[in-house]
């Protein structure tokens, strides 16, 4: 019984650490653009200050997902991007880098080009909603920065993404 108890505790601990890591990846560091956790967390509700990058990331939704080998925006993606555009128009001090990503089912170079198509699709949509092009940059990581690591559609669908990373006034001036 004693042994069993130890095992159970260990499993629980592992489960916990796995969860917290997934959480950090989803809402935090993404391809090096990651100071997410450092932003916001003010007193205004669960997501803090509505004009904070943390609020953008978590309440507005910082990412949209794509179908296999596609860069067209789904209806769900367009809803999210509409909210992103509203936020960016309201919080006009901020700029954003849109990171395009691909799942691992593809060759490295092609996936970089595919991620660029996805990032650009997001950029073009935001511009169509009135966000000035000068506030938006794009970059593609191809398949270099997966957030979900299994090799099945559950993970692939999360990895085929474009993430709008709010960059403060880093490249204003």
């Amino acid at each position, binding site marked *: 019984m004693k042994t069993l108890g130890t095992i159970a505790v260990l499993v629980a601990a592992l489960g916990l650490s796995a969860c917290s890591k997934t959480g950090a*990846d989803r809402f935090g560091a993404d391809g*090096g653009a990651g100071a997410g956790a450092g932003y916001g967390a003010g007193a205004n509700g669960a997501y803090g200050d509505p004009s904070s990058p943390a609020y953008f990331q978590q309440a507005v939704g910082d990412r949209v997902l794509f179908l296999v080998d596609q860069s067209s925006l789904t209806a769900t993606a367009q809803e999210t991007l509409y909210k992103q555009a509203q936020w960016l128009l309201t919080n006009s001090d901020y700029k954003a880098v849109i990171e395009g990503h691909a799942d691992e089912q593809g060759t490295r*170079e092609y996936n970089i080009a595919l991620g660029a198509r996805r990032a650009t699709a997001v950029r073009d949509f935001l511009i169509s909603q009135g966000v000035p092009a000068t506030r938006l940059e794009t970059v593609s990581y191809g398949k*270099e920065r997966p957030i979900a690591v299994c*090799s099945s559609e559950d993970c692939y669908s999360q990895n085929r993404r474009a993430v709008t990373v709010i960059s403060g006034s880093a490249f204003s001036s």
Partner: protein
Amino acid sequence: MMKPFAHALALALALVAGTAAPVFAQGGPLRIDITQGVIEPMPIAVPQFVAETAGAQDMAAQLTRVIAADLVGTGLFREIPREAHISTISNFSAPVQYADWKAVNAQALVTGAVSTDASGRLIVKFRLHDVFSNGEMGEGLQFAGTTDGWRRMAHKVADQVYSRITGEGPYFDSRVVFVSEQGPKAQRQKRLAIMDYDGANVNYLTDSSSIVLAPRFSPTGDRVLYTSYESGFPRIYVMDVGSATRRPLADQPGTMSFAPRFGPDGNTVVYSVTEGGNTDLYSLNLASGQRNRLTSAPSIETAPSFSPDGSKIVFESDRSGSQQLYIMSASGGEPTRISFGDGRYGTPVWSPRGDMIAFTKQNKGRFHIGVMRVDGSEERLLTASFLDEGPTWSPNGRVIMFTRETQGENGAAALYSVDISGRNLKRVSIPAGGSDPAWSPLQR
């Protein structure tokens, strides 16, 4: 050279002129024809090289081991174990007792000697014997070099043996630049590394602070092109291998550039530029800084590779709706599609002999490394796995190295090689994970 490939199934390795001892006894030449269908590796004896000066014993032992490993590693040779040897070679100049080597069925015998001269230089001599012809095959040769370069001297000896017996060009004295990978899948650390072709002497060229991708050697092996995210965006850099200093390639602001490759002149670089979400091919003259746009299509054009004469470029494009291979003039113009099989084709690489294109193929959820003729005919898949990609050719065009990645949350990338018959698939032994290998030309 092309002829042996006439039959797709005739590509396995073969011993011609009879593999059985009686045939050799009748005087058949010692020869492996790689292009004929072969089953049995040639038995070869590589007794320890003679140490001719005091203190050369260890070096002789190590050299002999590397020579034997090179030869056996091709899958074309089988080493006769030392315990089975009847004769020992204790004097490099003494006559060889061929009967003793016939008795253990060694068809080839390599003898050699190692010494150091007064200035501390290492001297390696060898002879290749055709046992059943009772004589030497080719001239005995001597190499001299620094003690540090002992592995290269071993590779040179093995290259001579390999070339004389197969008639193929040498390739053991070569290096591979690749991306060393460490850490879990979601936080993979990548750095450029260089090693001997067999995985020995790994040296790191960058740290792991930025993602680095797909290094490519210059035609003389002195420089490496690669893509790095150190600016926050993928950009191409050119590194001097000797000093590990690098500079960014001239690029256009607001764009991403990647997938570079040298032309055979060592001065032209062809690569992909992504601008406004669209990826096209460009070439850059390193000396003049002149840049030329080679394609202008709304599709993805990437992974370009020059023909050995520099006149053409093979690349991948999804202009048809899926990734396929195309060839066009090195100055641009209308491309010709060469891939027509099921599935998607990417990362084409022109063979150093000019006769074949190696590629990555995706079909029905599997990845393959394959080869086809330049006109797209005679496609053959050499491998199959969850994820194989990014082939690179050995300097003699007989072996392909590539990336194999395993699936799942603990998935990791490793370097593998396979010969162009699809035989002798094996993992290259390196300290950590590895991807994106690029084979150097033969060293001089």
